[in-house]
């Protein structure tokens, strides 16, 4: 997450006046961050692309309501996150409301959208880690995504999540504990021969 700069401030002012060209500055700067965060939260390429673009569209429509001193990215992140969470809830609802979904591998496989194809240079361990991240609850998954895949500092994560650094470290601790548990790691359980 780059620091605020003059270019962003000017672009923000022009966007408030309805300039689509100025908004392109934000899209070009943050499209990859938006896509990869969405991918980390929803787990598959198509949904991540659709949701990240939709977040930009909503940001453009509402940018005139943003306070002039607000940074774009933390505000935008809230829109993106809410869209992803809403999408996951709809997906969960569809999953639980589909008859006989439980115990039917075909239906479960179709509705489980945390696809291993999202991972680069796959191997068995990476697939397991990715699947385990997909099983974390939303607030724990997002800190893992922001820290590990976006390389954001604790300060940047705290700003994006509207919380303090203590909350970030606490969530990271419990997220990692849960990941260890999901990977069957326990005491000394994580394999030493991982790549």
């Amino acid at each position: 997450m780059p620091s605020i700069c003059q270019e962003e401030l000017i672009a923000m002012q022009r966007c408030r006046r309805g300039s689509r060209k100025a908004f392109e500055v934000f899209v070009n700067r943050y499209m990859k961050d938006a896509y990869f965060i969405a991918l980390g939260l929803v787990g598959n390429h198509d949904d991540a692309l659709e949701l990240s673009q939709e977040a930009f569209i909503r940001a453009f429509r509402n940018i005139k309501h943003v306070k002039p001193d607000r940074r774009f990215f933390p505000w935008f992140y809230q829109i993106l996150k809410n869209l992803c969470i809403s999408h996951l809830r709809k997906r969960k609802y569809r999953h639980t409301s589909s008859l006989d979904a439980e115990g039917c591998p075909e239906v479960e496989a179709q509705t489980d959208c945390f696809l291993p194809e999202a991972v680069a240079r796959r191997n068995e361990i990476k697939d397991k880690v990715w699947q385990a991240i997909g099983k974390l609850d939303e607030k724990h998954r997002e800190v893992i995504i922001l820290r590990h895949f976006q390389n954001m500092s604790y300060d940047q994560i705290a700003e994006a999540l509207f919380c303090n650094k203590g909350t970030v470290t606490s969530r990271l601790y419990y997220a990692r504990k849960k990941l260890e548990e999901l990977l069957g790691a326990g005491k000394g359980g994580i394999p030493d021969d991982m790549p």
Partner: protein
Amino acid sequence: MTCHDWKDLMMGYLDNELNDEQKLRFEEHLKGCSECASELEEFQKLKEMTDEVTLAEPEDRIWQEYWGGIYNRIERGLGWILLSVAGIVLIIYGGFKAIEEVIKDSNVELIFKVGLLILLAGLAILFVSVLRERIFFWRRDRYKNVRR
């Protein structure tokens, strides 16, 4: 301080987020606490595993077409708004004209005209009531300015 109280420093140590003083303090604690040392080791292994996972980069075409997709959808959104407004205006105008014709038509029975007027009065009351309720709740919405 219990081991649990060191979890914040442990995470900061793991992610290289501590200043020199905090780092030293935590390292001092580690020397005398096998439980935290063992937990840190597990976390380090886990971190190495998660750091190994990188997400697949989509084709270049996706990034080249990304802004175009957004631009088109923003533009179409405006189109839909204009279309909807025009549709509503035309329907209201057409409806008004049609009702006017019916009221003026001497061949239409009086009971039908009365029924039609009562129906319109009912619709008008419902519309005003819903509109007033919406405005009432919007004015009292404590969260309408949150996180803008």
